[in-house]
């Protein structure tokens, strides 16, 4: 992905991240391999559906990747 594409993705992440982080079961939001990446606290199709619906409403057409990481704790 070129720098312009990356900048655009970072801008999308900045816009949707606060709402995504309020979605139950979402541990984080980032960018991996040129795709918006949503980190999940558990492997759940319900959470994936909630995230996809939110993205469709806020940033339609944005490709998203899911990764099950579990919850994050200070170590």
């Amino acid at each position, binding site marked *: 992905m070129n720098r312009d594409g990356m900048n655009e993705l970072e801008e999308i*992440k900045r816009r949707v991240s606060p709402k995504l*982080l309020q979605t139950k079961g979402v541990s*984080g939001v*980032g*960018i991996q391999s040129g795709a918006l990446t949503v*980190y999940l606290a558990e492997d759940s199709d319900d959470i994936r559906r909630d995230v996809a619906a939110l993205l469709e409403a806020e940033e339609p057409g944005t490709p998203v990747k899911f990764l099950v990481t579990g919850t*994050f*704790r*200070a*170590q």
Partner: protein
Amino acid sequence: MSVTSTRDPLLIAKSAAVERYLKTAQPRPTFSASVASVRPEHNVVGVGLGSKLIEGRSTGTVCVRFYVERKIAKDAIPPTLLLPENINEVETDVIESGRFRALQLAVVAPQRARDPRARMRPAHPGCSVGFQFTGDQAGFVMAGTLGAIVKRQAEKKGEKSKEYLLSNNHVLANEGLLPVDSPIFQPGLLDDGNVSTDQIAKLSQFVPLAPATPNDVDCAVAEVLDTKLVRGSILGIGRLADGRPVEATEGMPVEKSGRTTGFTAGTIADTNADVIVGYETGNFTFQNQIIVVGDHGPFSQAGDSGSLIVATVPRRAVALLFAGSATHTIGNPISAVLSALNVVLVH
């Protein structure tokens, strides 16, 4: 006719100990850093009878034995939480057994590097450090990792240079609950640090954790009491090639040296993550964080917080490890940490 065995008083004393300490056992609360409790209700895992041991040798006196998860120096334990020296006039002994578990096959790899949980002078980044819990939290002990030695960015000419330990707020300042000047120990008290002899620094500054807005860093520094007490080279890694940080990139090979898992290698998976992290004092959001995945199992575990994450080639600092899950590790970009504390790395 009744026959009284000479063991009866011992059995009675043992039963009293079981009633008082094992039947009141409670699960230990979870803490964010690597923490153990010396409160009897958490720490006593067994009670038995046996010969009293002093420095590993039998004294020949039969006593009531308390088996504990962690045996900590007496002076680190508030007097009210000490186990009794006698029960029903029978002497007691305290033996560290760890927590009993169903047995699993385990293979212990040969230990080549220095033990990061040991007392070491000079102390090197990668070793165990920590604070002492006070107030309502007295009776718990913890340990985290010393990440690096740093100094202030601008020092007046001719002024004697001060050095500082760099780690996380939650490793040096108990999530912002400790006052400046609180003592910092090496090793941490969880690793048998001694409050009388093992203070190496005092808390100088921390960046508070913000509950309502996204955080950038979880970091703090503690002024070293004597610069002879520390060295900048990282256990198992060595000296940094350069004190200037390097920007993280996806796919970058990295390594770290931590108090719990020692040296591990991994790969940066994300340089721009916003995450929710659980602490003792609540959940906090962090923005623009670095995510690392271990190359051979987890990159970090509880107690590794504070470790410096370093690019493999060239060996330059990338991030300050502070959180993770079973599979992923999170670090603050080191440039944000150094800037927030106005310090530079000593390499």
